[in-house]
């Protein structure tokens, strides 16, 4: 990495106050660093207070700074079994890379390293030409990707953490990761001692993995006599009921045909009002349509819940010993800050503006190739093979992304 990036990172860290390096329960956390150009993580570091962490960072200027989601008795022990695990925050990692957004057609490219075929957008599972799975990707982020990631964060919190898991708004913190998405750190005691298996259940819960609606009250009592849950019910039970109601209410005949057989779809579409009224009634009634069975409901349910399941990197949630980016540290692949987001005003949060660390100065760069990029209020591109003077934050962003060089 270029010396100029390191120098600017160093200036940024020197300018911060010690309190900006605060991490809850610091003495029990492991800290880890990745140096510029380094491949090996410097791990098992312990800092008793924010000032000594700052001192280390200013002196060494790492490219990436992490702390453990876990709390340890002896965070500096190099053998994981000797650290003495005392629990861990529950973390959700939302990464826009994993969300299929339309904007990916505009800024992402993939290439098969086997046959050389190339394309735009979300990478295919295997190469459409040679069938191999040696797919290289070159991805970028834009406002739309980050907006999609933000929506996932809101969904996790408002749809699951608060109503189902009973987490209060003071028990979690939301961070912009400094690059592709957001992290949610849940610090309540409820989750602290959860094992990996318990965390896996939580991850599966928000991802809709293993859902069986027959276990949520849907039953065939007699032929075509279907009973099921109330939309007011809690947890997935009520969620599925509401999702089906909403889906059928909004669905066109074509939408329904994609979920169930044409005959059932037609009957459902023509008797929509009656079907919805039956679900609203007390007790709700889920049958009464010709050919409409428990299996039809299962199919409609899986089509209905698509927007309700959360796109998270499950590995992060399941892992009870994960390393997570430190608040206010810079992301070495973007030069943006890992920034705490006030959840009450998350709707207005603009990560590409508020996480900008370098607010003054400019830099002359040579851009190899870049799509349209915005950092702060400055926009650029798409462009190729061009040398130009840009605001420092934008220039460092392109350099960190590997798309530009200082000139």
């Amino acid at each position, binding site marked *: 990495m270029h010396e100029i990036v390191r120098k600017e990172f160093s200036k940024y860290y020197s300018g911060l106050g010690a309190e900006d390096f605060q991490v809850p329960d610091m003495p029990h956390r492991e800290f880890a660093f990745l140096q510029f150009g380094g491949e090996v993580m410097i791990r098992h570091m312990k800092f008793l207070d924010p000032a000594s962490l700052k001192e280390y960072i200013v002196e060494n200027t790492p490219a990436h700074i992490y702390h453990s989601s876990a709390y340890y008795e002896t965070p500096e022990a190099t053998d994981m079994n000797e650290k003495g695990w005392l629990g861990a925050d529950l973390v959700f990692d939302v990464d826009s890379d994993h969300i299929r957004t339309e904007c990916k057609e505009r800024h992402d490219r993939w290439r098969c390293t086997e046959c050389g075929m190339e394309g735009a957008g979300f990478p295919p599972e295997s190469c459409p030409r040679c069938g191999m799975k040696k797919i290289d990707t070159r991805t970028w982020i834009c406002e739309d990707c980050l907006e999609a990631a933000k929506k996932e964060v809101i969904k996790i919190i408002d749809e699951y953490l608060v109503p189902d*898991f009973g987490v209060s708004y003071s028990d979690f913190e939301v961070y912009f990761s400094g690059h592709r998405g957001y992290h949610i750190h849940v610090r309540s005691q*409820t989750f602290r001692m959860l094992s990996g*298996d318990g965390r896996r259940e939580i991850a599966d819960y928000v991802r809709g993995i293993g859902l069986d609606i027959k276990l949520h*009250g849907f039953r065939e009592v007699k032929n075509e006599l279907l009973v099921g849950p109330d939309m007011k019910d*809690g947890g997935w039970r009520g969620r599925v009921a509401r999702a089906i109601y909403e889906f059928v209410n909004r669905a066109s005949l074509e939408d329904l045909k994609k979920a169930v057989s044409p005959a059932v779809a037609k009957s459902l579409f023509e008797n929509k009002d009656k079907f919805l009224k039956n679900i609203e009634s007390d007790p709700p009634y889920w049958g009464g349509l010709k050919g409409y069975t428990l299996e039809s409901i299962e199919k409609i349910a899986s089509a209905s819940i698509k927007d309700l399941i959360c796109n998270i990197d499950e*590995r992060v949630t399941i892992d009870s010993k994960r390393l997570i980016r430190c608040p206010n540290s810079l992301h070495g692949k973007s030069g943006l800050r890992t920034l705490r987001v006030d959840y009450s005003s998350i709707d207005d949060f603009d990560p590409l503006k508020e996480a900008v660390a370098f607010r003054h100065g400019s830099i002359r760069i040579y851009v190899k190739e870049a799509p349209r990029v915005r950092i702060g209020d400055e926009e650029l591109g798409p462009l190729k093979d061009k040398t130009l003077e840009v605001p420092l934050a934008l220039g460092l962003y392109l350099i960190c992304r590997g798309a530009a060089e200082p000139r």
Partner: protein
Amino acid sequence: MSLMLTKEDLAKYPFLKQSAAYIESMQLNLGDLAAEEYSGILSKALMRIRDSIDRKIRPVDLSDPESEIISYPLSLALVYGSKSNWLLNRFASIEAKRVEEELRKEPGDRILEIAKFGFSWEIERVDLKLEYEELPFSIPLQSYLEAATNFNDAHWKLINRYVKGGSVFLNSGSLARLISEGFKSKIIRRASEREMHNFRIPDTLAPHMDEILRYAQENMQFDEELPQGLVSDARPPCIVAIMEDVKAGKSLSHMARFALTTFMVNVGESVDEVLKLFGNVADFDEGKARYQIEHIAGMIGSRTKYKPPKCDVLRSFGLCVGMDQFCKKAKHPLNYYRTKLKILGGSGGQTGARDRKKGV
């Protein structure tokens, strides 16, 4: 209102703190229990262990609750002293099943009391009435997850439970099962605590210990060793799918790599064979890969031979590609492999396995 616990209750539910207090009040020494005057208790304890080896669930003998109560810690000491994980698991399962059967006969309020006294779970009576279903109890989410992640059935998955406001709502049957599972974990967890590592049975009890070990040995069903080499036809669908991805040069996720490597190592493939598999992967680095495989095989580093993740974990990581008929009975890819090996012919001995081996 708290219900009175009788001696019979303490005999039926050995995990109650009152049971432990009762035993403590008798100030017995483990070594003394080999003496003639306690022979009734000793034979009860030995029977408890033999029952568990035979998978026999014997109802609690309430004609003499006192010796029933004391026989539990004695049988537990013998099981811990045996240092046999097989016996430990068997004993814990059968003791738990017995508790579950007893609990199912109890009225709801009693189950609630027993749960409160046995564990530090904050269970509450809620009487939630749903359409065609009643859920009288609620348990904090974390307590539920602590006890219920050992279950593999779909209806124990959190997503299939009524979850609201940080609580999981249960009927009495589920609560009974949860308590018995909590009991089972308690027995097993205690065995791995540091102070248990040096635990030895007093010499006076040693002959009985030998007897138990002999009986256990005779009854261990089949050797856990797998044949030395992969039998392609016995592979579970998840492993087949990962192998196809490898063949297509896909850069595998860490979990996929781990699952494949541990699977291959556990069916007896050599490090070189496993390395060959990965040769086509886009980001292959032989030195690094060899190091990691040797680590997983327990040849270097912590010297632990790692097992593949269980089916539940593979499902969470999106590596389960759908079940076939064998998957329905298996909870673990190696289970699947063992069962299918048996069906494919023979008990899966070392010879023959190689012969059946096909290219992968």
